[in-house]
């Protein structure tokens, strides 16, 4: 610890010495203001659209990066949509849910009683996971998920197929708008900090490390399937 303090002090001394030598002056007021107000800069026009168009843009951008998207009218359609997808892709009828009540309380027994449901973090044995996205960013078709009691991070990476429910009302235009929502949620909960992990996910896992050929499913999911739900009913 003492050694660390010595290194720390010397590094800061070196920074300040270099700045002084080069005539670089700190601006503490500007720093405080920036940290307190965290202003947004230039937002590309692409995503600044009417809601319906933003939803279409999200779908288009997500599909451009090999995610698949299915549109549903309400949450009640989720079990059947999950069942269809599993059948279509020849996947086992076993899904690990994130623990979010929105998923657990769905009428699974009515439309998808053959699917065995598990809940919680993944230890690497789950082929399919189903989670709820906190937000969708239309600009690049990006999902935003975060850790918490009902959001195991492992479900986003270990299973080969990652299914995500996204409410259309949770789709925003730009990254900055998603951050504004996270800030608000944390403030409402009385949380001083961000969740431990915030995952921005844009399409399934890929690599170009073998002769620059883009291949899906490098270490994370081979497939990202987004269930886009129109209303909150």
């Amino acid at each position: 610890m003492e050694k660390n303090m010595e290194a720390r002090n010397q590094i800061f001394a070196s920074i300040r010495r270099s700045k002084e030598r080069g005539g670089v002056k700190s601006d503490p007021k500007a720093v405080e203001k920036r940290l307190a107000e965290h202003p947004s800069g230039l937002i590309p026009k692409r995503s600044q659209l009417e809601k319906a168009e933003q939803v279409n843009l999200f779908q288009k951008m997500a599909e451009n990066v090999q995610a698949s998207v299915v549109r549903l009218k309400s949450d009640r359609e989720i079990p059947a949509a999950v069942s269809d997808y599993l059948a279509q892709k020849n996947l086992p009828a076993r899904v690990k849910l994130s623990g979010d009540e929105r998923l657990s309380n769905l009428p699974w027994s009515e439309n998808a009683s053959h699917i065995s449901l598990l809940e919680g973090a993944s230890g690497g044995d789950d082929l399919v996971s189903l989670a709820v996205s906190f937000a969708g960013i239309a600009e690049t078709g990006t999902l935003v998920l975060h850790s918490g009691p009902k959001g195991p991070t492992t479900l986003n990476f270990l299973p080969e197929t990652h299914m995500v429910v996204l409410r259309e009302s949770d789709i925003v235009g730009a990254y900055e708008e998603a951050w504004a929502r996270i800030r608000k949620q944390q403030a409402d909960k009385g949380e001083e900090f961000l969740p431990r992990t915030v995952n921005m996910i844009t399409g399934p896992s890929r690599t170009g490390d073998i002769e620059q050929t883009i291949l899906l499913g490098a270490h994370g999911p081979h497939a990202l399937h987004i269930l886009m739900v129109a209303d909150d009913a």
Partner: protein
Amino acid sequence: MQSTTRNFKNNASEALVNDNLQEALGKLKVGFVERRAAAAEKLPEFDALRDQARDIKNHTLQNIDLYLERFEEKVTAQGGHVHWARNSHEACQTILEICQSVNAKMVTKGKSMVSEEIGLNAALEKTGLEVVETDLGEYIIQLRKEAPSHIIAPAVHVLKDEVEADFRDAHTDLDPDRQLEEPTQLVHEAREVLRQKYLDSDVGITGANFLVAETGTSIIVTNEGNGDLTQTLPKVHIVIASMEKIIPTLEDTSAVLRVLARSATGQEFTSYTTFSSGPRREEDPDGPDQYHVVILDNGRSAMLGTEFQDMLRCIRCGACMNHCPVYGAVGGHAYGWVYPGPMGSVLTPSFIGVEEAGHLPNASTFCGRCEEVCPMRIPLPKMMRHYRQKEFEGNMNAAPVRWAIKAYGFMATRPKLWHMITGVKAKFAYTLSGGKGRFHKLPLWMGEWTKHRDFPASQGSSFHSQWKKKGGATTLNELKKGAE
């Protein structure tokens, strides 16, 4: 990492006759360059975003001490630990001590150029730890016992068939008759082999693309998802990051992220952009129990306030090397240290000294493409010129080079002499080339140039005499008159 930068000339000569390398480099030129151009084209605000990114980083560097202090405060408040390292040795030692404190046997790693810079793998392995690289490219070169040859595509110099051979050598417990010709088969095999490593490892080490002062957050940007598995599954997550990765806010990060992926791989956004703040919370179902950030100086604080400060804006996208004719011809290993291409030609002399790395700033045609594509608008050619000047002032060039530069300086400051000599030379060279306009082979030491390409001959008269013949202005007064 041990440098072979002094041997740049030999390294480059060998690279030029290495057929496998040349085949691999041929693919690089098309892939990255075209994809970046297409991504830039699709975003009308791209150039304005580059200006903004430059300004954000300039403001950050101006106040880097204040932002680093805030970052430390925020990480600590969330139950994380910040460690400071002046140099490679301190950084490796700190990481080693953390590993030992949890009796670690195995460590998995996400891709980190800073860990290459400090020689982390060797330092950990020396004590008996098993270190496993998980980025596919890094894994391939770890098996080959090589260094990365590109900062975002570490195995870009390796051909598919070579990967197959490496996997057959390394994964001896798998069926020797298995099919492994297709890239998909190779990716699948790496996935299976590494999957168990993530689950078994005690410590996960990642780099960071950004450290956010406002929230005490470290960020990794990956396509494979390997970094996320590395930092989520083990009990301990260690981040190794150099000090200039600091950025004020999440909004600033979003702004710079818009130019990062587009410049690097030509993607609109990378598959996984992950924001980590502290260790797992009490109620979290997964995540690491410990979160450490090791912040490295290693020569960076000394660059502040100098003509090289702008280099600290670099976000390691690799666009400069993708567009560099020298990198495209010789590849990354020839540069002899961690950072290749134009950014390496500025960073390497800054970190290991111009005495050791003087060849690198000279290995540039000053074509300016690196600066043209740099998302942070770093004036790379200008900085290489600064190093050439330092080399000359420090009396470090070989005698013939100094003599030639002096002779050039003498002529270039005497216009009449210059015109006379260049005029005669132009005619002479044209005649010698037999009117073909190029030399296929030059005599004596000049033959070095024509070994790999033709030398253009002059077109019979100097630029000045052609300019004069066409009635162009030759003095400032004539130019002013012409403008009226």
